[in-house]
């Protein structure tokens, strides 16, 4: 099972590829919209890429709850363990 740091780092690469945000900025306490300027459409792309990368399903209803990088990492961890 991937560690929190591994998930964060992989997620950071996804955010970098899609939204051009430097990987080092993608930290657990950062808000996707307020800190990283990831808008709703980029968020859809991030979610789809994350689903593929981590072999999890992130339902549309859940996406609005993933406000910070930490929220997303925690959701992925739970989904992988569930």
């Amino acid at each position, binding site marked *: 099972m991937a560690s929190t740091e591994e998930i964060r780092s992989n997620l950071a690469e996804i955010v970098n590829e*899609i939204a051009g945000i430097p990987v080092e900025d993608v930290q657990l306490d950062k808000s996707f919209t307020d800190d990283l300027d990831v*808008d*709703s*459409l980029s968020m*859809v*792309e991030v*979610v*789809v890429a994350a689903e593929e990368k981590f072999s999890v399903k992130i339902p*549309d209803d859940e*996406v609005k709850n993933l406000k910070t990088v930490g929220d997303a990492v925690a959701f992925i961890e739970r989904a992988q363990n569930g």
Partner: protein
Amino acid sequence: MTGQINVSTGAEHTAVLGLGSYRPRRVVTNAEILEQIDSSDEWIQTRSGIKERRWASEDETILMMSTNAAKEALADSGIDPAQIGCVVVATVTHLYQTPAIATQLAVAVGAPTAAAFDISAACAGFCYGVSLASDMVRAGSAKYVLVIGVERLSDITDRTDRGTAFIFADGAGAAVIGPSDEPGIGPVVWGSDGTQHHVISQKESWQEAAGSYQWPHLTMDGNPVFRWASFEMAKTAQQALDVAGVKAEDLDLFIPHQANMRITDAMRRTLKLPEQIKVARDIERQGNTSAASIPLAISTMRENGEAKSGDLALIIGFGAGLVFAAQVIRLP
């Protein structure tokens, strides 16, 4: 059982022989859209890539725009209009349930007795029409077929809806399809997903609207549409390349339905298209013109020199239904 029925035989190969377009005269800027919605030029541009669009004036009817685009396509093809055996119009904004606009268009372009009908395949309409036309020519049902994509989406746009008011626009595009010595239209990859019928839809039926003063506008749930278009449609586009036997590096042009610049960018990323392939970005100046967007985009690319005769183009239409269709074509 003694009688025998003859069967028709058609051409072995088909191609797009000519293309035409009509852009409405009136340019509508984002500033004008912003008079009725609470948004900003920057928001519209970053979410859609749209800087301006064109909305039809009263005299720029579905028939008028179609006729102009069709005549241009016929002239481009060099085909005598009397040779047209069928006219197919793809539209969702001809506001008559019946008759089809295609019959009047057939008269207007000089093919007064051609078979003629409209199809309702939303933003996939042009690609559906190209597929039907190519099959008709191959089956021998018609020697030449005129395909039109035409919309006046401004008629069914809720100009106060900040999610859609800036997207939809008007225009027409046309193609003449006919026999060819070489294959010019690849196999279609098409389908639908009616479980998502509600994500892009007219808000209520004409019957429901008749009892109220509420005009039935088009509504769209942006994020699920974006997800479907950006990822599922990239797979469809790849399949169209595969069935045509064309490698991505052999393509010259990628011309997706101009739905949203962000969808085009995401599809391009997912498809991993080589850098040198030119990508249609007509949405910047035209907005989303549904069935008309692909032929309009091709026209723009031909006019500015990005597209030339003989180029291989991957075209893909997708939209309300949900419906989709993609094929590889060689430009005339």
